[in-house]
């Protein structure tokens, strides 16, 4: 058994934060989409994967990571623009059935899209290096740590704050928050909520795409990366409470740590740990950390 030192723990703490940020970015989109549109977006994971692949393609076509960042955001959001109207078909259903059908529809979409990725880029993964600018390590006193990972944490924080400001300070953000509370009332007030729906959807998946690009140098680019992050991100929203922005961010970071810290003592536990944690949370706080918005 390897001796556990402080630097081990600090490294894993930071690794957990990196994963937590990625999960938070994905979960905030999932959470908003579920809270506002009533869609459990199974396809969120595949948009994340598409983000990584689009980024890879940008670099193959001669661009670099920094160009890829906004390109990925735009391209994935545009894809979301195509997909979101398809869900409108189910809005007329009663709430119970709606959740069911949107979930199945999104699941089938994710299967088809993931297979399309395999068809377009092949089933094997692609190597993806961190941008040259960040490809070094920093000496943080106790230990050295890759600069790129710190960048991911920073990027996550920036995006989180940006979305938070958007929700809190802008008109559209206000409408979204109102819609999360009471959809009908917003419509009664004469606001065209379907535009807000679309915006929320493309924002959510766009961020997930950027998260995918951010993750690419860390985990590589491979077709199954979407589904691999999908279920943990569902755990994040179940624990954090769907429709809660704060819940998804905090829960994302917590789950990121829960998945990473146990590696110090028993690597095989890390995959299972988040589900055990979820089970415990279900018993202790069935309503989610920040409460769920009852529909």
């Amino acid at each position, binding site marked *: 058994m390897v001796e556990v030192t402080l630097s081990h723990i600090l490294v894993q703490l930071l690794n957990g934060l990196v994963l937590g940020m990625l999960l938070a970015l994905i979960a905030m989109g999932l959470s908003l989409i579920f809270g506002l549109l009533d869609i459990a977006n199974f396809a969120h994971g595949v948009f994340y994967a598409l983000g990584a692949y689009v980024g890879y393609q940008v670099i193959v076509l001669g661009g670099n990571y920094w160009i890829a960042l906004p390109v990925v955001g735009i391209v994935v959001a545009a894809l979301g623009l195509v997909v979101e109207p398809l869900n409108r078909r189910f809005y007329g259903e009663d709430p119970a059935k709606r959740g069911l059908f949107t979930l199945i529809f999104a699941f089938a979409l994710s299967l088809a899209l993931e297979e399309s990725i395999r068809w377009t880029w092949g089933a094997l993964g692609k190597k993806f290096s961190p941008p040259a600018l960040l490809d070094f390590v920093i000496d943080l006193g106790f230990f050295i740590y890759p600069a790129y990972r710190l960048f991911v944490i920073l990027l996550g924080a920036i995006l989180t704050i940006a979305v938070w400001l958007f929700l809190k300070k802008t008109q559209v953000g206000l409408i979204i928050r109102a819609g999360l509370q009471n959809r009908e009332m917003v419509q009664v007030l004469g606001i065209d909520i379907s535009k807000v729906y679309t915006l929320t959807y493309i924002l959510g998946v766009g961020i997930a795409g950027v998260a995918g690009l951010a993750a690419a140098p860390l985990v590589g680019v491979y077709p199954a990366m979407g589904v691999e992050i999908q279920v943990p991100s569902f755990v994040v929203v*179940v624990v954090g409470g769907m429709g809660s922005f704060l819940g998804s961010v905090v829960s994302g970071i917590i789950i990121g740590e829960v998945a990473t810290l146990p590696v110090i003592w028993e690597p095989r536990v890390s995959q299972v740990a988040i589900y055990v944690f979820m089970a415990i949370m279900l018993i202790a706080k069935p309503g989610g950390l920040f409460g769920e918005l009852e529909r």
Partner: protein
Amino acid sequence: MMSENSGTKPSSIGQALSKHPVLILLIVLIIVPWIFQIWPIWTDILLFGLFAMAFNILLGQTGILSFGHATFFGLGGYITAMFLMEPYAIPRVPRWMGWIGIIVGVLAATAGAIMVGALGLRRRGTYFALITLAFSQMFYFLFFTNFMIPTVTGPNFTGGDDGIIGVPTPPILTWVYWRTPITWYYFVLLVFISAIYVLRSISTSPAGEVLKAIRDNEQRVKLLGYNTDKFKLISFIISGLFSGLAGSLYTINIRFAHAAFFSYLLSGEVVIMTLFGGMGTFFGPFIGAIVYILLKDLVSMFTMHWMIIVGAIVMVMTWLYRGKGLLEIIQEAVVPKLRRIR
């Protein structure tokens, strides 16, 4: 659900069909495989059909979507496989009593259903579906990473990423080498029909009607005084039990067990099968299983990217029919015409 009485003449074919569906199904399944002798595929159809019909007790009848039903299929299959492999059989039983392995597998699946149901049903609808998915992943990793009790039976408890290879088929009393594709099919058919008979009895019982009521309007059922939480849990357990039976037989079928039994893909496949055949009828999912298995085999002969086509079909079907499947579509088209045949 099936055609109702249409007058004093009891000669309508639809009526005869609806009185004894299980018997009719049995006769069909005894005879039809002789026409297209693809015995292993028919066996697959029976097992996944059972899985799908058990799943639909929860979805179509009670109105609860579980996205992790592979958990119970996997528990049934994997635990049975572990029991049947010599080093694990606890306690050692005589060879001919190996069938206890199936009972053990089914019990494991039932225990799993109790646990997942008790924890998950605390949350509503979509949450519940995701929680079931999460649990299936938990079991997947538990069995895949061999992370269980490493010292009790040796380091390789669950077979890890290799799975368990070479699961034996227990003898029928003294007849050890009884298994051939044909005899195995009829054996599975026997178990299948018995299970379906029981499942259908439950489904058409008064308790089954309560489940349908819960699906349609849970609030009202509660106001009528029923403990809907209890009914939902029981529905979940029954569904899990029979899913476990399907898995249990499946591992003997393919002589192999693997963590993939718990995969989200399998969970998704059973949802797709149910959707193809239709959630609204008891036998719909069986038709769906037939269609899905044949479609998958057919399309994969042409391309390895068959999933795109299947995914697209599911999307279209959900879009167009929203839960109505082939069986209902056929029924609505054919039954009124049958009534005119006096």
